[in-house]
């Protein structure tokens, strides 16, 4: 924990003093480093993550939480935070501990990699970006290509008055190639992305073959037909399956929505919602996945939590407050975007586990419909149980065969109807996890991953 080691003593002492004023107080300190390069044939841009260090103190007042964040870990800055918390505690002294389990974990972990990104110099990153650009730049119709190579090392230190000490250092690495094809004023793009938690080895997956595939995808979209619209059989590609798991089920299973009586899923806990082939998981401990965490921001270890087991809805995602309110245990899903943002119950790596069908079998089963590919995103509706997903492209399915390419489209539907309509999930050979980000509402974005294999169901689709 190179970036935080020098400040740990001062942070600890500030916490210890505050612990004399309240039954429970915690602090999360954060620092980061990294580098990103962007090349598009015209310009090369380098950017280092901000040299920002800071901390957030959270104390229990007896009736709720109060928080103070500061940007700095020097003694005067920590004293400022301490004094601000003390002022609140003077007016609202707490006598009893907050509800829920206070972590007592002692964790010290860092991303393990044979090839640290710290050893990859600016010149090498620039050369890789230029190589990736050259793989696509000469293709017909490809008008421009944007390449980004980046890594970020996020260091977090969590301490609380129950003696927890969790120190984690996570390195996220990503390479993106985005070719843009143009013809007669129409522009279309596709992406090839490789990313995860690790080191330089992740960028070995940024291959010429993958980049060219994205280039071909962008070119093909110039001549794509408009998508069909209305209720259809829909075959989701792995990235779109991931967005479905994340938007439809993951957000609804964040238990703060249960406590707010804002989740359509809450009364359905324990019920069968889908076929036996359906298992949905959130897994913060998934090795190497983009949203892997060793512990959450309340000091609970990242873990695998099964939300839906063979069609039955069995679990939700909890922080200490929701676990206490609902008689559960924390699941390691308390996360902050940074120390300047509040914590929420958040997903990590959320996915649908592989089934046993092959892609060919699912296409034949669909007979007629549409294959949605290259997921772009989606949005949840925890209260209403609706879901929206968007795909950059797709193919028609006609008479049990994949036929013409179609342009971007949106999917809309009621989650429970969609789950009940699932007719197959493909096997592990198709399983992928992506590298994305997710907000809570419109703010508080943090690294998030979703994935799965191919999945066949039915829903309304339309141009988007």
């Amino acid at each position: 924990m190179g970036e935080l080691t020098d400040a740990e003593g001062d942070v600890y002492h500030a916490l210890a003093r505050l612990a004399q004023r309240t039954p429970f107080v915690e602090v999360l300190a954060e620092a980061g480093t990294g580098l990103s390069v962007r090349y598009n044939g015209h310009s090369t841009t380098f950017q280092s993550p901000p040299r920002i260090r800071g901390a957030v103190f959270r104390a229990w007042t007896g009736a709720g939480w109060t928080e103070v964040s500061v940007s700095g870990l020097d003694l005067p800055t920590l004293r400022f935070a301490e004094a601000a918390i003390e002022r609140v505690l003077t007016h609202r002294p707490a006598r009893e501990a907050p509800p829920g389990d206070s972590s007592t974990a002692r964790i010290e972990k860092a991303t393990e990699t044979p090839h640290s990104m710290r050893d990859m110099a600016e010149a090498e990153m620039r050369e890789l970006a230029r190589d990736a650009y050259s793989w696509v730049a000469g293709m017909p119709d490809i008008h421009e290509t944007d390449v980004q190579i980046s890594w970020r090392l996020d260091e977090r230190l969590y301490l609380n008055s129950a003696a927890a000490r969790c120190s984690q250092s996570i390195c996220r690495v990503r390479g993106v190639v985005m070719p843009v094809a143009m013809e007669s004023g129409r522009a279309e793009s596709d992406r090839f992305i490789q990313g995860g938690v690790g080191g330089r080895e992740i960028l070995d997956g940024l291959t010429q073959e993958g980049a060219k595939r994205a280039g071909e995808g962008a070119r093909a979209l110039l001549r794509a037909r408009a998508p069909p619209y209305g209720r259809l059989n829909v075959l989701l590609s792995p990235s779109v399956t991931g967005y479905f798991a994340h938007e439809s089920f993951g957000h609804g299973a964040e238990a703060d929505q249960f406590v707010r009586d804002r989740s359509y899923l809450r009364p359905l806990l324990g019920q069968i919602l889908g076929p036996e082939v359906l298992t949905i998981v959130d897994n913060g401990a998934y090795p190497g996945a983009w949203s892997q965490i060793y512990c959450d921001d309340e000091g609970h270890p990242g873990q695998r939590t099964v939300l839906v087991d063979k069609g039955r809805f069995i679990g939700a995602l909890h922080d200490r407050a929701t676990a206490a309110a609902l008689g559960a245990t924390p699941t390691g899903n308390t996360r902050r975007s940074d120390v300047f943002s509040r914590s929420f119950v958040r997903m990590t790596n959320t996915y649908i586990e592989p089934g046993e069908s092959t892609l060919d079998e699912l296409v034949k089963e669909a007979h007629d419909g549409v294959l949605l590919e290259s997921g772009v995103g989606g949005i949840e509706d925890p209260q209403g149980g609706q879901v929206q997903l968007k795909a950059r492209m797709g193919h028609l399915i006609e008479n049990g065969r994949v036929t013409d390419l179609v342009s971007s489209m949106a999917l809309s539907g009621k989650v429970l109807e969609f789950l009940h309509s699932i007719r197959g999930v493909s096997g592990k050979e198709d399983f992928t996890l992506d590298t994305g980000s997710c907000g809570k509402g419109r703010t508080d974005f943090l690294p998030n991953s979703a994935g799965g294999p191919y999945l066949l169901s039915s829903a309304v689709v339309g141009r988007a």
Partner: protein
Amino acid sequence: MSAPRTRDAAAFRVADQLVGKEPWEVFGERIRRFEIHLNGDAIEMTRGPVALEGYDIRVFRPADGNLGVGSQASNDFTADGIRGALQDAERSARYASFPTGKLELPSGRGSTGGIVEVLDRNLWEYPMDSLESYVSALRAAFEGKPGFALSFGSVRATLVETSICNSFGLHTGYGHTQVELEVGVKSSGGPEGPPAGEYWFNDSDRRLRPDEIGKRVEEWCRFAEDVRRGRPAPTGEMPVVLPPGVLAGILPIVCGGRLTGSARLRGVAVQPGMKLASDLVTLHDDGRIPWAPMSSPVDDEGVPQRRRLLLDHGAISEILYDTLHAGAFDTHSTGSGFRGVSSGFRTWYRFLQPPTVSPSTIALTPGDGGTDAELVEAAHDGVWIQEIGWSSPDPVSGAFGGEIRLGYRIRDGELAEPIRGGTVGGVVFAPEGAPSLMNRLQAVGSTASFFEPVSTPPVLVGSLTIGGEH
């Protein structure tokens, strides 16, 4: 925090350390943020102050006829910290390259932008008290409304002293406030009928508006009840009315993707004079609208903001530049260099990100389409889209679309039953003759209203694709 100060502002403290390192620019912010979060109508958490002070150093170095531009953000104001940030910026500049040899940073002489109303004085002086009063009024507005309740909410206020200086002589600063409001309103209905519906509202503003709470709560409750009663959308190509809230999710991203110097550099911009929309469309970029979230006396490079004509009766007039892209095309910045803008949203701390070219507030000139009712009458048989889940515009292709979270069927020229679910989408801009939202505009309403980074009347689109159940 008292009134805005500039003497000891973040950027100026750093600038003192940069003598001899010209050309350079420093953008600084001193930020205090306060938040109240609601669970139902109970206060779940108060936060604040979130105290954040930092700066970003940009250096510009010649590189084989081009410019090597490097930047580094930091919150370390010690001499060693500033030196370290400068070294990082210099290292980035060594490996970077931007295709211009011309650098024209503002000097602060001449127009300085003048006064734009972007600071809520009461909020500045009494931030937490102001938020608590606002939340009290919000909770009180639901009293006497059986069947309606807050399901969650938050109100967050950010108070910022922005300071900018550069080696060309610029030395400026201003204070501003920002308010983010997020509210979920639930309609429970009675024991019969459909389950509860929720209307989810997000807004970004420069000031708290407690006097508008009553009117807003009435509207949110009506929308929540309509979400509850909403029925599946129809299917087909049909006339669609889009109000300002929907256009706010579409126009800024697409304009940013096509009508800027960065798009021109990448070769995906449209050329001045090119017809891109119906004659009914006259579009400005206006960074001086009072209280708009993107308004300010100067942009984040210190160039005065003003009003720019983007589309004149459907034809491209101007495109937007920051200083770097202006240099690449031997023109001048339009005051469009902004930090922290992504996907149409702006972060509350901006110094962490370098400037990019971005629109400010997109303003569609009102037309002769009349009132909302007259637009609906002109649509005759179609759909009013009140809210799209996420319109997800693609800045490259211009495609947009998503789920209809709330809409209304238009029958015989009048609003009829609410609809919910299904999709709406299309392409925002397309060359003349090709189908697009802007080419198919049939009427522009006569009264503009302001919603986040957009000032626009509702518009009637002759035909868009609705994907529905029947």
